[in-house]
């Protein structure tokens, strides 16, 4: 796994993840929903991990969530904040918390998605204080 900032924007765009990254490039946070069981999941898969239906689709999330847990990687230059954010839609995703005073970040904090440039026209969904 990567530890340095440089590899943080090395996106892997494949047939299953491409729509997700194209959505992010347009400023949309996409999550995958199942048209059979009605449940959402993350990270996105073509076959629903709840009911195994292949009738799944991307939908746009509200972009609002709360911090479930986080950690500051102090040895990195500059230090960065990794976090699990629980979206209002009910799934929890790995992400970064950015543009915040690091020492004031806390579990339960309301956050809102924003998009950081990831090169080649792509963008990475990250979160900042709501």
């Amino acid at each position, binding site marked *: 796994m*990567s530890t340095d*900032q440089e590899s943080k924007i090395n996106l892997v765009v494949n047939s*299953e993840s491409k729509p997700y990254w194209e959505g992010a490039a347009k400023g949309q946070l996409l999550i995958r929903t199942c048209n059979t069981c009605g449940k959402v999941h993350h990270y996105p898969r073509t076959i629903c991990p709840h009911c195994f239906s292949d009738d799944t689709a991307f939908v746009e999330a509200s972009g609002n969530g709360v911090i479930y*847990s986080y950690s500051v990687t102090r040895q*990195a230059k500059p230090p960065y904040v*990794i976090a699990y954010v629980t979206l209002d839609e009910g799934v929890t995703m*790995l992400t*970064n918390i950015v543009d915040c005073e690091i020492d004031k970040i806390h579990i339960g904090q309301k956050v809102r998605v924003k998009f950081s440039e990831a090169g080649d026209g792509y963008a990475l969904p990250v979160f900042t204080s709501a």
Partner: protein
Amino acid sequence: MSINGKSYIVGIYEHPCRAALDKTLPQLHAEIAKGALADAGLSKDDVDAYFCAGDAPGLGPINMIEYMGLNNVRHMDSTETGGSSYIVHVNHAAQAIAAGHCNVALITLAGRPVADAKEGKPTRYYNQQAPDFPFETPYGPNVTNMYAMCAMRHMYEYGTTSEQLAWIKVAASHHAQYNEHARLRNVVTVEDVINSPMIADPLHRLDCCVITDGGGGIVMVSPEVAKSLKRTRVKVLGAGEAPKHLAAGQVDLTYSGACWSGPKAFAEAGVTPADIKYASIYDSFTITVLETLEDLGFCKKGEGGSFVSDGNLISGVGKLPFNTDGGGLCNNHPGNRGGMTKVLEAVRQVRGEAHPKVQVRNCDIALAHGTGGLLGSRMGSATVILGSEDA
């Protein structure tokens, strides 16, 4: 079919090196195999089953069986669950022996992350085709910050403190002072841990395990073979293994797969946590131990912090002596995979061959637990319960 009493551990070996600049990875495996077989009083031609995990190069058993000249193998298994693999292997070897598929099983682990780093080689490799890779790697996850998030959430939900986590390192260091091979032999205090540099909040440098080269091996045999050997035999009483994952986005970092692997092992062994005289608990980080102890039922969920405090894990002092070799926190974490050494010290305890300063009296029942992957999120847990002949 139960494995209880159907197989025995008769040979173990822990490579004494902690940096292996002058040794290749296959060479380490072979030195370990030689050591474990010598301990058992068996030869390589007695081996009819071989077990290894992702640390073994090439096609795992295929390449290693050839390299070592194991010419009588009729059963092999390369189950890979990270650091817990070798405890899964003990379970699988016990099952294979009980089913009559083999009589003498050899399990080896080796690694050289220290040497690899010095030689400029990658020390960890994560396959880009892993399904989670595209959605997680861009955020800079590493082993420390991912475990740190478990600790952060555990603190939030249960009020666990850094001082309580530090007690786990303190206990390990008390044991490591007696192990001549331990990577870190200095006894540390709670203050030493708290004052060590913050790596990833809330984990300090001394909340983290050592990085070492070397490895270890185990020889397991059928009861008939065990009775023909002079070595003190250690009975396999029960085992359990379990995956845990992120459940499609329903994340809960406060517990591990031990809450499933543990009860299976206890049920098969016919014992309870109160019967365990000694426990080897996977200790990649202090939080790994704390969550695991709760999940195995040594204390209630959320009460791990008070359970580990005040020396309760120190042999001769507390109620549950743990990791009396110094564990991964102080002694050895070969190849970044600590499951093997957990079994080895549990075997020493049941044999009565741990260092006299840390040997648990009348240690008739011991437990070893492994954690692979990332605690609380995407992981493999494995538990084995071992006993003396009379257990």
